[in-house]
């Protein structure tokens, strides 16, 4: 049966894949292609954050009463990552490869340590806290627009 853990971890992997593509594109000269790949990646990230911030985190907070706990730290890290998204998009606009790759590398580590905390702790806690409403929560998350 699909759980919040398996669904959201799967989505992380989908985002990782798009990250790898955008980073690989940046070794070429085709800035239009780099921009396309970057935006595919950023769209997937924004969508993932939206699922968490609009559905998963509020449901978790409501169920557990923990509003200043793990979800708060995760929201803070989303803010930090959004800054890196903007920096990457700027680098592509200015066609600055070193800046792009440096920001991408930084984002990769930031994103991976963030995902690790979610996959190993938060999602499991969410699976437990939302045990009675898994299907409903998943459905709401799937319905979140890009």
């Amino acid at each position, binding site marked *: 049966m699909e759980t919040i853990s398996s669904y959201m971890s799967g989505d992380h992997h989908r985002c990782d894949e798009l990250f790898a593509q955008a980073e690989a594109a940046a070794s070429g000269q085709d800035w239009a292609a780099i921009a396309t790949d970057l935006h595919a990646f950023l769209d997937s990230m924004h969508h993932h954050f939206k699922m968490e911030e609009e559905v998963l985190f509020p449901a978790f907070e409501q*169920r*557990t009463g923990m509003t200043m706990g793990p979800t708060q730290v995760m929201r803070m890290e989303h803010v930090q990552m959004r800054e890196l998204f903007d*920096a990457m998009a700027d680098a592509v606009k200015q066609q600055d490869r070193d800046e792009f790759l440096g920001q991408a*590398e930084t984002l*990769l580590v930031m994103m991976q340590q963030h995902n690790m905390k979610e996959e190993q702790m938060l999602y499991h806690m969410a699976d437990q806290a939302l045990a009675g409403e898994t299907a409903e929560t998943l459905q709401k998350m799937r319905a979140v627009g890009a």
Partner: protein
Amino acid sequence: MSLPPGLSFAQAPPIMVPFRFFLSAPLFALLVALLALWFGPSLLESRWQPSVLALTHLMTLGFLSMVMVGAMLQMLPVIAGSPVAHPVGVARAVHLLLVSGVLFLAAGFLLASPWLMLLAMVLLGGGLLVFVIAVGFSLARAASGNPTVVGMRFALVSLTVTAILGLVLASNFGWKWWLISWIQVTNLHLTWGLLGWVGLLVISVSYQVVPMFQLTPAYPKLLMRWLPRALFVLLLLGSIPWLLADSGMQEQVAIVVALITVAVLALFALATLRLQSQRRRKQSDVTLLFWRFGMVCLLLALALSIVGQAMKISDNAHGENFMPIFLFVAGFAVSVVNGMLYKIVPFLIWFHLQSLLMGVAKVPNMRQIMPEAGMRRQMWLHFLAVPLLGLSALWPLLIYPAAVLFGVSMVLLEFNLLSAFRVYRKHAKLAPKNDLQTI
């Protein structure tokens, strides 16, 4: 529902918690290089010389354990969701005790001074005790389902065993009391230290960082679950034949256990190389190259230790077999640790700066904090130093070029780390004043 006890999402501890360890470590490795130049080829005559013992401990405690301790204090909140309590105080105490303890230990060996030895035992024993208790509590609270946590627990137990055996040996070295099996105790001490503390920690950290930095598939679940357990049980089994002295079975049991241990470690190295070859990230980087080099050295060290044992049995020779140990320590452990530093250090600097400067000033990215060219230069020096060091086991004169290259590589490593840290200091000044306590 409340958070399980001890589970916390608190972020990184203050930057100086890991950095005081990271910035000290290369200086010990540099000291090793300088002493190697001083003693020269005589080092390769016997492993029991005080000079060899001093150098070994400067390397394993002063460099390897120094970084490993700092990295564990840093990583536990992220990897295990279980930060170490009072990280600042623990880090200061452990660092001070470790640094002074290693220096006194080396001096105690070189000057054959019981009093320096005693001082070293108190300092190192105390430092490791504080570390083991602080990290032990944190690991005990962490979720047990996580193979990294399980592996780290075994690594910590191994460190404790290593330290206790080390204290026994140091007291014997200082006061020459009657320790009949000191050769066996020494072998146990170094097996628990290298395969247990270093090996198990590298394995458990790899489970997280290999997939994370290069976007490789995860290690197979069965391997993650059983490999650290198997290695730990093998270390225990390997310690028993020594207890069963003169039972006649001793030799055979020891050989079988050693062969399985070699197979387990080889499996880890091969699995890691395979995962790295399947990475989704196309961008190659210094950390990846350091790890690949490290895994190849581990495989070579394992193969050579089997060959060495076989030759020893057939010839009944008593020559020293330095090559596997050089490849394990300098080729495998130092490379992996060095590669990790090049990810952790720029990332942590970025991370702390970004928390300080969000909305105030632009934060440099990881590559601006730690430029690729400087890392690569140091990496190539290291890649040249290791084979020369390995070959010095056959041609002792090669110890000179090996030590020079290794020393220069460590100077460059320290320079790279300090340059990155200067970027941190420069930018942290821009932070609003009330945030400065995190520096």
